[in-house]
């Protein structure tokens, strides 16, 4: 690992959170750092070790990162309190930023939230003005009726053309459905109704746009095979706050990043976006953003 330094760190209340800081070895750690954390129940290294690979690639290009486990996942202890999972996630992310501020003097952050990680990522970006960039990979999707039907028809056609898949589909149908708790834990905004999730997403994105937070919405071939016009945003696609958001549909990769080619495509897009953002911010005025972020309690109250 030439040119990279990795430092394991315990941080947060009672040092209960655990992660690894990856930073350029030459001491040029940059002014913006990336946060990476759990997607679903996978620990901090990510599916196919993607967070390790991305963190090292970013460090080679001069960008520091902290990959870590949220409370109760990977090597982090379970939280002592009884906070809502989203509140706890946001607090954990804030503890990660505090750690990098104290350790390296970095005050600006890009949050990389994969799949269920998009949920606390968005909560943090709304709640904390230190966030200047937010990437959500297969996080929130509100495809319209046309897109949903198109997806359904294509999947049915694929199944009809592949008899072996029928058996697989029947097996999947025969499996016991996941518990309500499991569904709630995996839903982007918890067990809220879709219209509530959509309203919250719209409002959050408007706030981020007003604050000038850069957002990249990245969607994979797990959600669809085609995308005509920001289809995953459905009725929100051209609303204020979402019009200017970076939106990338990558049908050749899947959300599990199962193939090495998918990982490389993902890292190329994310790496370039992060570098564009860090270089843009390096030339921007250093003062805090004009509009203050929301306290975390307000963010969570609206999702409960």
């Amino acid at each position: 690992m030439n040119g990279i330094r990795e430092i394991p760190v315990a941080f947060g209340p009672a040092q209960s959170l655990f992660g690894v800081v990856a930073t350029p070895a030459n001491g040029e750690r940059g002014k913006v750092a990336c946060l990476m954390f759990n997607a679903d129940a996978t620990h901090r290294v990510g599916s196919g070790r993607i967070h390790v690979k991305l963190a090292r690639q970013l460090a080679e290009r001069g960008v520091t990162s902290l990959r870590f486990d949220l409370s109760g996942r990977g090597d982090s202890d379970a939280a002592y309190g009884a906070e809502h999972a989203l509140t706890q996630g946001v607090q954990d992310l804030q503890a990660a930023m505090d750690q990098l501020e104290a350790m390296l003097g970095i005050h600006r952050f890009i949050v990389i939230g994969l799949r269920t990680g998009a949920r606390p990522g968005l909560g943090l970006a709304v709640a904390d003005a230190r966030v200047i960039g937010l990437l959500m990979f297969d996080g929130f999707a509100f495809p319209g009726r046309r897109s949903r039907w198109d997806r359904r028809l294509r999947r049915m056609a694929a199944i009809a053309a592949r008899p072996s898949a029928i058996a697989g589909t029947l097996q999947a149908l025969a499996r016991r459905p996941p518990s309500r708790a499991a569904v709630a834990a995996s839903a982007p905004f918890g067990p809220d109704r879709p219209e509530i999730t959509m309203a919250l997403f719209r409002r959050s994105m408007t706030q981020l746009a007003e604050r000038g937070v850069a957002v990249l919405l990245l969607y994979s071939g797990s959600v669809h095979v085609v995308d005509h016009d920001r289809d995953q945003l459905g009725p929100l696609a051209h609303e204020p706050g979402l019009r200017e958001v970076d939106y990338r549909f990558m049908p050749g990769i899947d959300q599990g990043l199962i193939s090495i080619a998918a990982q490389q495509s993902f890292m190329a897009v994310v790496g370039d976006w992060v570098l564009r953002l860090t270089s843009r911010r390096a030339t921007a005025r250093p003062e805090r953003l004009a509009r203050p972020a929301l306290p975390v309690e307000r963010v969570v109250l609206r999702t409960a």
Partner: protein
Amino acid sequence: VTPLLFGPASRQLFGLFHPAHGDTHVDRAVLICPPFGQEAIRSHRLWRTLADRLARMGYAVLRFDYHGTGDSPGDDADGEFEGWRRDVCTAHEELHRRTGARRIVWLGARLGASLAVLAAKSGRSDPARLVLWDPIVSGRDHLQWLRERHVEALERSFCVPDPAWRRQLASDPRAFTDELLGFAISPTLLLQLRNLGADTLQLTALHETLVLAADDDASVRRWCESEAARRMPVRYSPFKHPLQWSAEPQPGDALVPVEALQRLATFVT
């Protein structure tokens, strides 16, 4: 829990040391040899929970990532048996250095169990006992199993799967061998996997070995019988558990099956 980077400067390993609570078993410690690839990710929280439990019972525990895996330095493609075998011995030495324990039990799972056998055979370290959980005793069968899981994972993950994947799997034995479930496989590792078999996986008489595997795992049972026939001190214990080694961890899955955890803690102490 103390995070560590240990080993020679040219091949540092990432580890997590769980010091024993109290001094009930100062002479004993446990080294966990994790599986490889997706299986390591799938079982990660289980090792953490087991290590916590063992530490509370008074046993120091070291968990670590082989070179090129987890948080350890190195790339996927650096992975190969010889280096990983040495990594097990390096981790053993680190645990001994930290605890002074004379009786260090190695708990290896899947390919980690096979590596533990190879490392013990090398004679560089002196584990008191091996506990092997679902060891891989036929690399060729394991490779085929992983190829099938890889294609299944692709089919599950993509919205509309490519039918060519399954055709390739059936018709081309080289297809899906240079990467499996998100991890690159080097040509060296591929060859070593293909050559891994009961004849290359030999126990020694210097330590006892306990093998934990499902009742219906005939290949492991046969391997145990052949090692016992060589008068190796090996014992087989049926071990059923709900952990799906290759699956992507999902909320609600049995990430840490309680019964398996309890039995593992009993087996290694």
